[in-house]
């Protein structure tokens, strides 16, 4: 850019800050502005219609994906502009793909594709094994060359972190290095984040909001209920 300065008047801050201090070094949140808080207020409310839930959760997802992409490397690139001037800019480096954790993660695909046109998207289905009470891989389908790509792992809610960690384990088995995975998430619980980041300290986590904690049923509090359910079924 020709000139870079910071914004003049800071936007109104959110009153309800993240419930985790300090953040693990691999965790990044969106700027906690009043506007973002207002978006969350809409999708959290149980009285919000499905149409509004879709629209406003999409807005947050787009912001999360944009933030996630900022952690990808760029290289210097010089172009000629239509006015005949040369411009020293940057070019995107490296191939990416999305991987959504079914079913709720799929809801983030539309937002991803709005930002990264025709990006490849792999899928993972992980469910709790009723015998062992541990997350178990049921299904996965990835692009063949996933090992050479940066992976944006999509799951809206990080509660205990069980299925996210299982998904990362599967990706690593497929040859994706840990530091090439970016986990993109709408709402995280502090305990889930802590477990996750302790196990995978190299993996960057982009989360929109860190909530108070979990209830006895392992739902995030205050949370927004079951994301997949609200997005697809209600």
């Amino acid at each position, binding site marked *: *850019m*020709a*000139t*870079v*300065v*910071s*914004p*003049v*008047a800071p*936007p*109104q801050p959110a*009153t*309800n800050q993240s419930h985790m201090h300090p953040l693990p070094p691999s965790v990044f949140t969106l700027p906690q*502005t*009043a*506007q973002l*808080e*207002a978006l*969350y*207020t*809409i999708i*959290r*409310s*149980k*009285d919000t219609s499905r149409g509004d839930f879709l*629209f406003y959760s999409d*807005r947050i997802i*787009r*912001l999360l994906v*944009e933030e996630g*992409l*900022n952690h*990808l*490397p*760029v290289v210097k*690139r010089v*172009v*000629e*502009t*239509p*006015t005949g*001037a*040369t*411009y020293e*800019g*940057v*070019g*995107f480096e490296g191939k990416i793909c999305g991987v959504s954790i079914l079913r709720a993660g799929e809801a983030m695909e539309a937002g991803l594709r*709005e930002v990264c046109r025709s990006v490849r998207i792999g899928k993972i289905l992980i469910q709790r094994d009723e015998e062992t009470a541990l997350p178990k891989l049921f299904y996965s389908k990835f692009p063949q060359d996933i090992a050479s790509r940066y992976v944006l792992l999509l799951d809206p809610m990080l509660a205990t972190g069980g299925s996210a960690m299982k998904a990362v384990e599967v990706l690593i088995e497929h040859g994706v290095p840990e530091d090439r995975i970016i986990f993109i998430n709408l709402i995280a619980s502090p305990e889930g984040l802590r477990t996750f980041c302790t196990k995978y300290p190299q993996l960057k986590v982009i989360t929109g909001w860190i909530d*108070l904690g979990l*209830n006895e049923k392992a*739902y*995030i*509090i*205050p*949370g*927004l*209920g*079951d994301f997949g359910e*609200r997005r697809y079924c209600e």
Partner: protein
Amino acid sequence: MLDEVTPPTDEPTRIATPKLENLTFQPKKNTVLVSHGRPPWYGEDGHRISDAFVVGIAGGSGSGKTHVARQIVRALGSIPSVVILSQDSFYKHHTDEELALAHASAFDFDHPDSIDMPMFASCLADLKSCQQSNIPIYSFTTHQRLEETQYLYGAAIIIAEGIMALQDPGLRELYDLKLFVQCDSDLMLARRLKRDVAERGRDVDGILEQYLRYVKPAYDNYVLPSQRHADIIVPGSNNTVAIDLICTHIRRKLLEQSHHFRQKMAIPHLYASPSGTVIPECKVEDLDLTILPQTRQLQGIFTILRSQATSRQDFIFFVDRLSTLLMEYSLQYLPYAPRTVTTPVDATFAGKALSVKYVCGVSILRSGGALERGFRRVLNDVPMGSLLVQSNTSDGDGEPLMLHVMLPVCVRKRHMAEEAWVFLLDAQIGTAAAAFMAIRILLDHGVKAEHIIFVTFLVARGGGVSVLRRAFPGVKIVTAGVDDIMQEGWLNHSREGEENLPGRQVWAMVPGLGQIGDRYYL
């Protein structure tokens, strides 16, 4: 010469079916007529430098006031924008008793008291001072003022006509030129008879009774005496010379105005040096710009958009992505208030909600349209207006012209505009001429400067933005990037089959993005 005159229209009945032979150019009343766009009406400091020119035309019923007004509009020819304001619109709201009388043809519509003079004057004053006005609509079928109003804005010349147009001192103060249309009583009665019989199916006795009871006394007592206030008495027919004199006067007045102010007008290259770089050198910190955080992705998007090798498909995709980011960023500057909700797991969340009464977008066409998809991805349910501002290439001075104004209802109505937040969209701020005019239009409507958020991809630091900033310090300008300079250039518009067309002088940003509108739309 009875068959030559236009039927008088200041009477409580209206004919709606136009005859085929009448379908020639007939300037409509209460409509802003535009011929070639309106040049700036404000100075470099952003303040209005001239009022609209107001002509008041009075005269008896059937004397030919409307005819004179239309002749003036026609004779003026290429004038920026005119509105003919009719006194008929300002009949008072009637009580039930008055209504009963009106339907029995026993209500005196010719008395000055039947006209809402204060409202007439306040609407005219608003229009004269270049504000919008929402004038009342009077229904002649129900004899009542309707709930709805008609929005008027942007006339450089206003012609107010009606039998009582020179009656009220408050109105008279607003006129720059006062005309009285003179006509013999017998001719006026003859026209009235002819019209009422032919078009309203009334019998001669009834017409004469009404004439003697209301029309004639009103004319003698109020209308005729008001001619002493007139600057010029115009004959109702065979008045070519008079019309010519009047038009010469109006043109001279308008020209004086524009000569007087031309030097001060906000035409960017008048304060730009011919070499291309612009005085004065200003620091970006002084411009009070709100600049999108320069992340890697943003730099990458800009590199793609700036490259002339970028395909149209990619250009559109990345413009849409960038406008979405810009809009999300801009929305931070709206006010938010606390709001507590209950989540589906029965927990409460003390959050926030947008706390504004009205929000809307207004895009400056054509290139402001490139921000509309991003706008819609973020605000899907708010009104979206548009303004068309083009630079005047015909006489080469490149002054901006207002060609089209289509604003959301929440801006049209002044009491709403005062509480509205407006996102003004344009692809870039170069000379800032269009931005300047657009902001002035919103301020004219009563929108607060602090409630205007100008959203743009690129600002030229050395362009007109410094003048814009000085004139409108309260407006927030959110931009994705800042370029250093503006460069003079020629834009070739030759297409196949029409070669050798002269190019058009333009100011381009360097390094810039090229013509964003062309790259996005063509």
